[in-house]
């Protein structure tokens, strides 16, 4: 198809030329046309006029582009005009095809405009882009370097993913081009390919290394983009390059690059910045690697002392790097001084970056915040909102139980002036988090949350309301405290509703109605009728949404009691029983029936004190009689909703859409007779399962449900360690409320500082710890997740330099062990094969002495190297994996090197990609002195990816912290041969839908043909089964444990092996291709 179009397009210019050469064809002075267009636009006053003008312009462009008289030169001008219109936001899609045409046929200059228009108009997924592929191919091969440059530029901007293989060899070739600019662009184009289709460029990673060593610094600089990305993904894989990067940085810093890389006499600053970013990724949590870079970091800090913007950019990167890598005390000191220079700078940009750096380091080094406390206070009053926000971010990170009130107050003040949605959402979440974590007392908590709800409005994250309601309903262990909290909430809400409820956001009103419904009875001073009156007011408000009204009606149902409410309730019911909103109608019906029948109400909504755990009959068996009667009377039998959906889909004639809303209510198949019974059943069902509740997806009642849930009123089961600490620290209470008035009394600021930075200085670290051990507020929910909570975070830099006792290593297996004969069918054969090869890792096992502990039934099977996972005091965890025919077993060795036995050791493994099952049942292990305990896990792939990762935790009773480790293994460990006949292969091939095609390099061998040699390598490394070889083609099969087949079709095509993989699992072909490439690379 594209060929045909291509041909027509090539035929066009001759036509055009012949017409154009005729006399009389009007010469259009288009450049003046653009001029007049712009003049006209600037004269316009309204958006509407502009629209009309542009539409006129576009239609004239449309006429001209499609006219055969238009020359390429005119076309170029037209394109520029179209680009202009498109930039203003008007659709000019009719020019797209002409842009491609221009890129294809124009002379160099016209081509450039064509390419430009294409890259501005189209996106990677646009179908017209296919027409560009041939042009790009042609230009890549052109002898004109400018054309090559243009093609590379357009390729790095937009190129269809599927067509990458077509141009990949050409782009690769450009890496060896004599001109540096071409090499540089080729590197970036390949980087782009890596971003959109990493599997396709897997094989050229070596060439990236070559680019890094290129004699031209420009090309080297371009390759840094790639490395930054690759190292971000997998820092472990590139540790060996650390010395290279350090050497490069040394040369750059030392001024060894040519002069034209200097910028304001700073040598190649952008390259320096990138190198520093790379180094910080490499040195993170790795003392060894960090060691290598200490010297150059110091040098960088020292050298970059001139006063230009760009040197500050380098310094900032340097500081970040120093704080990211394994710490070294004197470097940290220098970096801290550097941050000081930033923060104190009069230049606002530097101040901002200084604050950002502080935010970054403040968790490691809270003393630094203390040093700059006065600057931070000043920045809080800074006119620039961005500076203010960053300051709040720092404060957020240093918040603890002692300074929370001051900091939250600052945040709320900022929130009340903020107009930006993004900032509001972000900050509201932070305030809610702090309030939950550190609230000193009930009143403060409720008031803060009120502020959060009022300021957060509708944009707030829904989980804030949910977790608030949950917290409130679960409450405290102590009955008295619990009551106090709830009563306080009720009081504050009643007064809010008595004020101006119109101004409150809907979400807040919903929270209020729920709380009043649940807890208003706890407050004796407020009668039920007052509450109902207040709630009724909400119903009459103009801006109440129907969702809010639903909440209100439900609250009324819970509250209405006594004769005083009856008339009001009655009128509410009348209004809403005829509402168009079915959910509202449902609620109104419930309200009506329950308010009339106190006995029923007492049963459905029992008062809290007598509330027993609800027994929910989810099968609704009490309705059986009713249903059978209805059936006998001729009613249609009940069908589950999905079945009805299917039937609806089959009979497309009538749209049943409107009825779907009521479906969840009618689960008992008799909504047409809304008897009392049906309502109560839907009620009880509603409380049993929230998702059915009223069928309204809009009701997010997660918090509500808790109390009414299966376990009944759940507060009884909540264990709160201690009642909330009243008052907190006395010093907070007489903190002066900081006014933003212009009386800049230093004293006031000092006072603010002392309250804000409370608990941060070194001497108070222990005090902080104490503060934490008396958890003021539901601390148990956050423990372990928030580093701030942990007193250990507040170590000073001296302590950080000490090698931490917990040393975590994450092992990696670049190469899986190999067997000679992958086609073997039984485990015995596999075992034999394993013994045959001297590449088996048994030798290495012997070295560690751990292999002796391998379970007997696994001996002789293929086994990976045993690697150390982590160690904690005297314990060491090692692991390896053993290939069984039907499973992959992971063996974890827990060895104890001390004399004493260690008890209650627990190892937990989990992974998103794998299913882990443990052979032994006991969770706890006891490891005697100088002995080893072996645990065996079976692994199965849940979600294939190139490498799969297990995350494990070692729970050790003697150390307070759990030790985390990761274990990474290639997917190829899970691949087993699949024995098939050619016929079976044929039928399976047709039934699989996910496929991938790719060219692999052939392996050449003296003894065999290239196909056989390549297949041998693949079967050896990856345990594939060769089904049949026919001439230059071969079919190969394998399976991913347990039974997920993948079929492979190989054909020798020139110098490459064209493989085509199919599998029912979408990710499998891509992953397998990757491992095939790796296997062939190794040869």
């Amino acid at each position, binding site marked *: 198809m594209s060929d045909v179009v291509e041909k027509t397009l090539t035929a066009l210019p001759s036509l055009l030329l012949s017409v154009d050469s005729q006399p009389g064809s009007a010469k259009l002075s288009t450049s003046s046309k653009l001029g007049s267009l*712009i003049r006209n636009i600037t004269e316009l006053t309204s958006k509407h006029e502009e629209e009309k003008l542009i539409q006129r312009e576009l239609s004239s462009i449309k006429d001209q582009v499609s006219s055969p008289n238009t020359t390429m030169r005119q076309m170029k001008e037209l394109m*520029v005009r179209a*680009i*202009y219109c498109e*930039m*203003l*936001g008007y659709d000019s899609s009719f020019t797209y095809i002409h842009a491609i045409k221009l890129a294809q046929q124009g002379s*160099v*200059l016209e081509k*450039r405009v064509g390419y*430009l228009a294409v890259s*501005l108009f189209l996106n990677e*997924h646009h179908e017209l882009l296919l027409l560009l592929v041939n042009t790009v191919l042609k230009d890549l091969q052109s002898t004109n*370097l*400018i054309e090559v*440059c243009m093609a590379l*530029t357009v390729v*790095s*901007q937009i190129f269809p993913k599927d067509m990458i293989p077509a141009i990949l060899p050409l782009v690769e070739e450009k890496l060896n081009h004599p*001109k*540096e*600019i071409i090499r*540089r*662009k080729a590197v*970036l*184009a390949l*980087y782009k390919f890596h971003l959109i289709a990493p599997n396709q460029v897997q094989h050229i990673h070596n060439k990236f290394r070559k680019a890094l060593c290129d*004699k*031209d610094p*420009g090309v080297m600089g*371009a390759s840094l*983009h790639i490395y*930054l990305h690759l190292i*971000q993904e997998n820092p472990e894989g590139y540790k060996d390059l650390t010395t290279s990067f350090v050497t490069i940085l040394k040369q750059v810093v030392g001024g060894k690059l*040519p002069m*034209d*890389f200097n*910028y304001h006499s700073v040598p190649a*600053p*952008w390259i320096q*910045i990138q190198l520093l*970013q790379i180094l910080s990724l490499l040195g993170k949590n790795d003392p060894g690697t960090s060691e290598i870079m200490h010297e150059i970091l110091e040098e960088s800090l020292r050298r970059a002392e001139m006063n230009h*913007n*760009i040197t*500050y*950019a380098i310094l*900032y990167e340097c500081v970040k790097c120093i704080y990211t890598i394994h710490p070294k005390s004197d470097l940290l000191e220098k970096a801290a001084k550097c941050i000081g220079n930033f923060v104190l700078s009069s230049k*606002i*940009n530097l*101040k*901002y*970056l200084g604050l950002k750096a502080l935010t970054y380091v403040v968790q490691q080094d809270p003393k630094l915040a203390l040093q700059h406390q006065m600057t931070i206070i000043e920045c809080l009053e800074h*006119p*620039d909102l*961005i500076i203010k926000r960053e300051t709040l971010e720092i404060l957020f990170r240093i918040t603890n139980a002692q300074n929370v009130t001051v900091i939250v107050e600052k945040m709320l003040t900022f929130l009340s002036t903020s107009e*930006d*949605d*993004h*900032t509001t959402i*972000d900050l509201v979440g932070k305030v809610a988090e702090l309030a939950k974590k550190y609230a000193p007392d009930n009143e403060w908590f409720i008031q803060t949350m009120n502020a959060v709800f009022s300021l957060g409005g509708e944009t707030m994250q829904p989980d804030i309301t949910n977790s608030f309601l949950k917290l409130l309903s679960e409450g405290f262990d102590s009955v008295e405290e619990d009551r106090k909290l709830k009563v306080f909430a009720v009081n504050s809400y009643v007064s809010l509703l008595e004020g101006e409820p119109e101004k409150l956001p809907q979400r807040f009103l919903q929270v209020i109605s729920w709380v009043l419904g649940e807890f208003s009875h706890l407050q004796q001073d407020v009668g039920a009728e007052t509450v109902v009156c207040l709630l009724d007011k909400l119903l009459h408000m103009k801006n109440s949404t129907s969702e809010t009204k639903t909440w209100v009606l439900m609250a009324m149902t819970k509250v209405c009691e006594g004769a005083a409410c009856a008339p009001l309730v009655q009128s509410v019911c009348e209004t809403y029983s005829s509402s168009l909103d079915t959910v509202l109608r449902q609620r109104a019906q419930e309200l009506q029936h329950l308010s009339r029948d106190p006995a029923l109400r007492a049963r459905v909504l029992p008062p809290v004190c007598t509330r027993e755990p609800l027994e929910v009959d989810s099968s609704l068996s009490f309705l059986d009689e009713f249903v059978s009667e209805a059936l006998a009377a001729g009613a249609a039998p009940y069908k589950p909703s999905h079945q009805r959906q299917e039937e609806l889909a089959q009979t497309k004639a009538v749209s049943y859409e409107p009825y779907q809303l009521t479906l969840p209510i009618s689960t008992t198949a008799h909504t047409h007779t809304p008897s009392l019974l049906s309502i109560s059943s839907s009620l009880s069902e509603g409380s049993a399962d929230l998702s059915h509740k009223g069928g309204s997806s809009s009701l997010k009642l997660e918090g509500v449900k808790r109390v009414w849930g299966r376990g009944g009123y759940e507060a009884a089961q909540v264990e709160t360690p201690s009642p909330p600490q009243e008052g907190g620290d006395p010093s907070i209470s007489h903190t002066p409320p900081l006014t933003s008035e212009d009386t800049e009394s230093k004293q006031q600021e000092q006072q603010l500082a002392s309250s804000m930075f409370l608990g941060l200085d070194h001497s108070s670290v222990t005090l902080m710890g104490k503060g934490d051990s008396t958890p003021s507020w539901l601390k148990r929910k956050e423990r372990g997740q928030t580093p701030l909570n942990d007193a250990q975070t507040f170590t000073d830099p001296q302590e950080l330099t000490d090698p931490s006792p917990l040393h975590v290593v994450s092992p990696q297996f670049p190469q899986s062990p190999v067997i000679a004969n992958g086609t073997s069918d039984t485990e015995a054969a596999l075992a034999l094969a394993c013994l045959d090869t001297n590449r088996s890792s048994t030798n290495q096992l012997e070295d560690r002495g751990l292999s002796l502990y391998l379970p007997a039934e696994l001996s002789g099977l293929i086994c990976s190297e045993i690697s150390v996972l982590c160690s904690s005091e005297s314990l060491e965890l090692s692991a390896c994996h053993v290939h069984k025919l039907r499973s992959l077993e992971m063996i974890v060795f827990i060895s104890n090197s001390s004399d004493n036995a260690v008890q209650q050791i627990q190892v937990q493994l989990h992974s998103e990609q794998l299913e882990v099952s443990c052979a032994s049942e006991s969770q706890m292990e006891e490891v005697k002195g100088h002995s080893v305990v072996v645990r065996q896990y079976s692994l199965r792939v849940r979600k294939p990816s190139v490498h799969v990762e297990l995350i494990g935790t070692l729970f050790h009773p003697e150390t307070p912290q759990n030790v985390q480790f990761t274990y990474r293994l290639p997917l190829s460990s899970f691949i087993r041969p699949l024995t098939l006949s050619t016929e079976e292969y044929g039928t399976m091939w047709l039934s699989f839908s996910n496929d991938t095609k790719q060219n692999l390099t052939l392996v050449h061998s003296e003894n065999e043909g290239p196909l056989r040699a390549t297949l041998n390598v693949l079967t050896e490394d990856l345990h594939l089964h060769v089904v049949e070889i026919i001439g230059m083609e071969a079919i190969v099969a394998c399976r991913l444990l347990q039974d997920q087949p993948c079929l492979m079709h190989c054909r020798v095509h020139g110098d490459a092996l064209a493989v085509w993989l199919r599998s029912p699992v979408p990710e499998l072909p891509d992953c397998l291709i990757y491992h095939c490439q790796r296997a062939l690379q190794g040869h």
Partner: protein
Amino acid sequence: MIRAILIFNNHGKPRLSKFYEHYTEDTEQQIIRETFHLVSKRDENVCNFLEGGMLIGGSDYKLIYRHYATLYFVFCVDSSESELGILDLIQVFVETLDKCFENVCELDLIFHVDKVHNILAEMVMGGMVLETNMNEIIMQVDAQNKMEKSETFIFQSTRQDR
């Protein structure tokens, strides 16, 4: 990575927009409007960085801008880019424009959209910084412009000999 480069004037009229990531036509216009809205209300004596426009990608992204006379130059970048580095890149860009157009003004950008794009393409390629040396950029752009005049053009670069 650089996500987008926008130039608009004091009234929010776009003068150049280049997106290195795919957005729909409408989103692009919205991004331009939102960015203008954010940038234009900032004073002259505040910092040149902004965070978290909703559309361009939330908290991971930042806007780095400079204001020259009638024009705003805005780079939308992700968190991996250095703020001050980009700020100087804008400076390089503007200086280059100034050299190419000899005292660049808003009108130059309007009438030579294609030229400005070409200069930009020599600096930033597919969202990655390609070249930061002004002379080198001008050299490349000139080399292409000369094509107009002579077909037998010899490719030149100052860095040829390295």
